[in-house]
């Protein structure tokens, strides 16, 4: 299958002290480990198990994901910004793969 593709929406600009809305979406099957294939054999679990968001190296949001979460997990959350910088988003896969994305914001 195609490699998971992360997508992120962060405002390009904000005023100091603004509370901004961040949206993230990653394409991923989130295979729960509970399903069986056509031959009756269990399909191994393969999910994104952790998502983090850092701003200028400081953690602002973190979340553990469990097998019951649907395919293509979507997060929408708020963050208060006081200075210009970069958000770094990281998704950790069961197989050890790490997918990441970065978005800059200019704070006036």
């Amino acid at each position, binding site marked *: *299958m*195609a*490699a998971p*593709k992360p*997508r*992120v*929406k962060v405002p390009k600009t904000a005023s100091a002290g603004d509370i901004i809305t961040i*949206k993230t*979406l990653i*394409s*991923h*099957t989130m*295979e729960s480990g509970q*399903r069986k294939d056509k031959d009756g054999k269990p399909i191994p679990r393969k999910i994104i198990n952790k998502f983090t968001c850092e701003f200028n190296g400081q953690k602002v949001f973190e979340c553990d994901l469990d097998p019951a979460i649907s*395919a*293509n997990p*979507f997060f929408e959350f708020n963050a208060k910004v006081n200075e210009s910088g970069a958000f770094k988003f990281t998704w950790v896969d069961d197989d050890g793969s790490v997918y990441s994305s970065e978005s800059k914001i200019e704070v006036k």
Partner: protein
Amino acid sequence: MTRLTRRQFGSVALVSAVALGVPVYLRAQAKPRVVVVGGGAGGATAAHFLARDSAGAIDVTLIDNSDVHTTCFFSNLYLGGYRSFDSITHTYGRLEAEYGITKRTGRAIAIERDANTVVMEDGRRLEYDRLILSPGISFIWDSVPGYSREASKIAPHAWKAGPQTQLLKAKLDALEDGQNIVMVPPPNPYRCPPAPYERVSMMAHVLRSKGYRNSTITILDPKEKFSKQGLFQEGWENHYPGMIEWIGPGIHGGILSVDVEAGAVETDFDTFEGALLNIIPAQRAGGIAQVAGLTDDSGYCPVDADSMRSRMDRNIHVIGDAAIAGAMPKSAFAANSQARVVANHVLGELTGWKIFPAHYSNTCWSLIDADDAVKVGAEYEPRDGAIVSIHSVISQLQEDASLRKANYEEALGWYAGITADMFG
């Protein structure tokens, strides 16, 4: 002289033992004239049944702008490689030769309602005692900013079967592994609610059949939910894991624009790129219904629940996708069912045959992968002026494969039946 086939005999006997096969003329002076506009599932069925059941007592004219008709239903199976284009393309020859229907090829562009006359683009004028209007849908092109009739030559809608369907198939077949598809389905109400999602299934089937592992299909839906959603999503996980991503408006935040040259759809959330864009705009009743003033604010035609008679004009019945048929979806099955009711109604009014109480039905089958078809269906009746569902069925999650295969075979049987209803 009226000839009666064995098949007709049964229905005639049911209708009236008195008027055995020889309909009574209420108008003594001339044969009543019925004009049918639109030769699809509604119009062709209505013309066929009226001509057949009136056995020559009604002069039936069918107007369609083409001599051949490619059915929209099963066009997804053509995309998926299950049907040839020829097998879903039909002619009106038998309706003319065997049922005495006059076929007029060309566009009906106006209805002079005061004069009970249909005006065609080439200037021909056809008078009617009853008009059955089955014009299907027209597109609201700018419902997707950046999309247009011109743009559809690059990013096909393929929501009217014909060259658009062939263009979509050609573009699908030309994709290479790693190239992506982006579909924008229409908002409600539109022709054939489950069809965008069956189409996605068939496109995925083609990609997987070619061994592609890196291509994806993204659906940017203007709707928060869709027909048979659970069944489709379960099927996609089973047959095409990781290939299909459905994104509703709660996530994409709205479709802002499409650039067919660049192969990009911009949403409030992000820009989605695809080598193949399938953009299906919002819809309303076919143009002639708009021009003739038969539509309301919804863009579709309000009708009486018991007869599909237009609420704007008592000499006109509107059937199929153009009509507001209460709980019934816009589908070929529904149009065919409405056509039967209207044919009986018009026959009764013009010749004195018994008019039966209206009863409608619909089933939509969707093929997800080979031998895995799901269905949703219902029976409908008029109640307090509205068409309501009185009984319904829908496929269940995790059904037995034999049941899904039986659904597919049922759909094949239905196709044979409805095309016989339409084309004789």
